[in-house]
């Protein structure tokens, strides 16, 4: 066979007569991308992705169909070549009306592969499904109960007008329960020890997740938790009828079994000093949460029997003593999930009457619709378009009644929701015995001085909202060895957002520990139908078999004056 000498990317190589440039490049370990070339078929050169530059020839040549010739000088990686290839690909993807990933996965802050795990659940492969979920979210049994489920909002099943999207969380919960309760549960591989140690402040969803990811990388993680038990707001904020403590305990155990230690009753800036941590650990992750409730902000809001909602919930969990609201009327201020937890818990504390006072309408409530639905079943009453104006006090300094104002909806505000506007002269009085304010939380960074006095380089700062300041991508704080994630960074947000951030912080922290530059995970190209147009019902209805959602079995509403779990979980999936 005739040998042919060519210069390929500046290097002399030999090929055989009849070889294409693509063949030759492949044999020499040079990758040239192509879509239309198939080694089994004759060259076709339609995609123009495999183009290269040949010295002395105008323009770019397709390497799949250009045969090599003596003395040819070929360049496969010049800027011109890359530009040419990119143009070819840009053209192809601009007519590629298709989704690489499903909207559920793309919407999930943690990027949980919903479609993947549903396919595993279909085959009864529950532990495999949990293994897939735990690649990005270590808390499926917990999230399967209390996640705010942006995935279900994004679900295209909604376009079929069957009232609900896919019950993604119900499926996740089913698989997680099967896995947790089974003889063996999913356990990831933990890499050999790197000898590095990480201190994690707070055993809430963020801290637990950070530990889960970092421990798998071979770093020893020790969590320091101010409370006597793990879970953060999962335990102290979310009532047991929604998230039983034993589920938290079991899921936390799947994290500690990897070798993670949790030290309780250890509060940074209080009985724990950063100085000690710095000596013992190579890095620290702050997952401190947002601990302080916001007051209702009206005249007299410092009266007795007015609590912040989260303190109300937390106190009961800490003391294991339920409030006794027998014969009392409770007003819960706010429209989020904490408000729901407060009103439904108040009912379980035997309150006579429970009002939820919310300044917009039900449609604008940020709370999960299912929560609103269940609260109504349990007898909670709603006062929409209502805002507190003034707290009226009794002789003991406790609240006697609440003067409220009627509101109406005006122009949309920055959040896109219509702004509530006071209806002048609409004052009215509601007699209440307790007020639970569920209108927001603030981060409390009480250890700033302690840390900054001991950094040995760098400074930890807080933002103007009082949250921990850090790089939004790498989550590294002003101190190179300190990272942060969760509510403490974002202000009060969701569990799944804390989990997602913790994974990113763990990724950065791991790079830091390895002495590498902090680079976020590479983002892939994802084709999206939504890049072409908004998906509409007309194109979905009639294209898929109709199937209503299997409803979650729940405890009878008349049987709920207790803290037993209301949602009973699917018994089977058939």
């Amino acid at each position, binding site marked *: 066979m005739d040998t042919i000498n060519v210069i390929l990317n500046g290097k002399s190589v030999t090929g055989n007569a009849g070889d294409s440039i693509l063949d030759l490049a492949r044999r020499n370990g040079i990758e040239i991308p192509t*879509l239309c070339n198939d080694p*089994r078929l004759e060259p076709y050169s339609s995609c123009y992705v495999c183009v290269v530059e040949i010295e002395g020839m105008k323009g770019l040549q397709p390497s799949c169909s250009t045969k090599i010739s003596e003395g040819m000088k070929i360049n496969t990686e010049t800027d011109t070549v890359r530009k040419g*290839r990119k143009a070819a690909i840009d053209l192809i993807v601009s007519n590629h009306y298709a989704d690489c*990933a499903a*909207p559920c*996965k793309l919407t999930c802050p943690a990027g949980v592969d*919903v479609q993947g795990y549903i*396919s595993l659940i279909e085959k009864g492969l529950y532990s495999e499904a949990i293994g897939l979920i735990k690649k990005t979210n270590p808390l499926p049994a917990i999230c399967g109960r209390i996640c705010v489920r942006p995935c279900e909002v994004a679900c295209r099943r909604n376009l079929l007008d069957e009232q609900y999207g896919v019950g993604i969380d119900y499926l996740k919960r089913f698989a997680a329960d099967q896995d947790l309760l089974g003889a063996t549960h999913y356990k990831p591989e933990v890499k050999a020890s790197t000898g590095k140690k990480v201190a994690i402040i707070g055993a809430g969803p963020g801290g637990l997740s950070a530990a889960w990811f970092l421990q798998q990388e071979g770093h020893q993680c020790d969590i320091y938790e101010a409370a006597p038990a793990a879970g953060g707001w999962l335990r102290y904020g979310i009532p047991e009828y929604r998230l039983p403590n034993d589920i938290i305990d079991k899921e936390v155990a799947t994290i500690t079994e990897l070798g993670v230690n949790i030290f309780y009753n250890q509060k940074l800036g209080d009985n724990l000093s950063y100085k000690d941590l710095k000596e013992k650990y190579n890095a620290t992750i702050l997952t401190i949460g947002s601990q302080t409730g916001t007051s209702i902000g009206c005249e007299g809001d410092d009266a007795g029997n007015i609590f912040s909602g989260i303190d109300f919930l937390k106190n009961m969990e800490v003391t294991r003593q339920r409030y006794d609201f027998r014969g009392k009327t409770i007003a819960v201020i706010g429209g989020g999930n904490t408000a729901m937890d407060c009103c439904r818990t108040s009912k379980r504390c035997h309150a006579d009457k429970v009002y939820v006072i919310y300044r917009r309408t039900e449609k604008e409530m940020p709370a999960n619709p299912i929560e609103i639905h269940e609260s109504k079943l349990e007898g909670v009453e709603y006062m929409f378009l209502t805002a507190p104006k003034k707290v009226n006090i009794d002789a003991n300094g406790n609240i006697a009644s609440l003067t409220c104002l009627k509101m109406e909806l005006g122009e949309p505000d920055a959040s896109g929701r219509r702004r509530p506007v006071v209806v002048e002269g609409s004052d009215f009085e509601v007699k209440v015995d307790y007020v639970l304010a569920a209108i927001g939380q603030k981060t409390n960074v009480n250890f700033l001085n302690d840390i900054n006095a001991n950094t040995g380089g760098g400074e930890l700062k807080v933002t103007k909202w009082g949250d921990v300041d850090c790089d939004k991508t790498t989550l590294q704080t002003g101190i190179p060895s300190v990272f942060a994630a969760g509510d403490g960074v974002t202000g009060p947000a969701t569990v799944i957002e804390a989990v997602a951030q913790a994974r990113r912080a763990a990724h950065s922290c791991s790079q830091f520990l390895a002495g590498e530059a902090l680079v976020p995970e590479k983002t892939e190209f994802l084709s999206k139908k939504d890049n072409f147009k908004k998906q509409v019902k007309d194109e979905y209805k009639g294209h898929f078999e109709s199937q209503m959602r299997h409803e979650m079995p729940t405890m009878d509403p008349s049987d709920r004056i207790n803290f037993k779990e209301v949602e009973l979980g699917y018994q089977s999936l058939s």
Partner: protein
Amino acid sequence: MVTNRCLECGCVEYFSCDLKKIASDYNAEQGKYAGEYKQYNVKFDHPFIEIDNNKCVLCARCVRICSEVVGANALGLVNRGYDTYVAPALGNSLKDTSCESCGMCISACPTAAISENFTFKPGPVKTETIESVCHYCSVGCTLNYHIKGGHIWQVTGAEGQVNKDGNICRFPKFGYVAMNDKARITRPMKKENGQFKEISFDEAYQIIADKLKSGKPSAFFAGARLTNEEMYLIKRTSDQINATTGSFHYLGRGKGYGQNTPYNVPFEQLNQASHIWLLASEINKENAVAGFMISNNRAVKHIPLTLITCKEESSMERKCDELIHITSNYSFIRAANHYLLSNNLQNSLFLNDHVKGLEEYKSALLKNSFADLCEAAGCNQDTIKVFAEGYNNAINGILVFAEKNLCALAAKEIHHLALITGKLGKTASGILSLKEKNNSEGIQNSGIMRKVKSNSPEEWNAVFSQSKNLFIFGEDPIGCAFDKNQVKLWFDNKEFILVQEYTLTETAQKADLVMPASYAPEIGGSFTNTQRTIQWFDHVISGPMEHNSIHQLISIASATGVSGMNDVADAHKEMLKAITEHASTKELDMVTTNHTGRVKYFDYGCDAEFMKTTLYFENALKK
């Protein structure tokens, strides 16, 4: 099922899409050339292949592989320029075209524009890829099983010794769903009062041991789908109690197939042929990957293909250059031999040096008149002359034929033809005998058929009338019989029948004890392909049974005193020793054949699984 509500909006090729990878590498922007775009409905009407033109990049690999390699021409490009799209030829549904459902288009697609129409939610999930050897036909293709959680999610081709470019056909590509079937037998079942009842493996072994030790005349049958190691263990057990062994697969078909195989033209030499004759073979269905090689050489290298067939309508008609209709394969070849010998066109140099028995053969054959033989062959004399001379004179002439569709005597006459023309065993020249099942060749080498001297129906009738106990592994003679009533009689008045199977086949229903069978990927082992290559493969998945087939066979063998084997690797070693001991170099000889009383009793290689998969394809594709 609750999970059914998921619409699977994400792409099935998420982890493997070439376009996504390249677009990521080059930071592609979907909005860069925003403007007009095409929108198509996804087509699900083909039972195995899904077409989503939205994802098509117009590389035409599917169209080209279907024409250049498969030769089916079922796909084409419709319209021109911006309006071009890939569509089934001549109609709206791929199902209504000449599509052979081989799935090669799927293997060629760089995106998911053509993908598998899955029977379950395909995820996609990241799977483990394990290489193995196909367990359907005798070509012996290498393939990859994609496994997660003991479920087979997909099968793709791997570059193997035979299928060097990784091509596979519809059997492995879509037939794997049977292995995921939850309806399989997984525990031994004993018949009591006409009803099957699950029993423990130990109880089953005890029953079998008692029967083996009973001293009653017994016969063992091993299917051509089994691994060499299974065959070996069955043979060892049978020999220990001096029983008869056989395989329904070849039962009553005489002897003569085995002689050709050692001289087969290697598959990779097909591309050096000057002319290929395909006799009695629906190669595109029965041994499709070998068919791809022939079609590819025809399309690209223009190697002419002549089809010789007894079928009124052959699926290869569209894929050949010349078509010869005949009514008897045996007589056709005999007529050609007659023509060559009577006209003194034989390769005397070769015959004199290598072959015994020429004169006797010649004088016996020439007693027939050429005209009578041609008439018996069902074609005119000129056609046979042209064939005989064409094959004889071809520089590299290859006659490819399927054992399945002709009797052992016709195979023997093909052997004679290759001797007369002096082509036997020459490079890229001679014959290529295709076998029906993955291990049809293995059963020939296993010694299982050694005790039946003539392998004639009469000989077998005698075996059946004498045998009290029958042990049948991996065969369904009743279900696969052409004449079920005739075959059923063989199983009457038996004291004990054991059947090892995947499901309760018609034969299994006759059994007193049914043992669950493992699929080959669940046990590992080796098959011998039609080129006599022993291809080892590791076990891929554990399967649903407490004791797999190898475990069972070792337990059964040990009841007859066989010891020293603990796993499939041990059985493999012993098997290799045994076949080497018995291997003998035979002289090339010619013998007079007489075409009487040779019957083919069974279709589908006498394998219920092969039948089920074949019918699964046929029914799914019914128009």
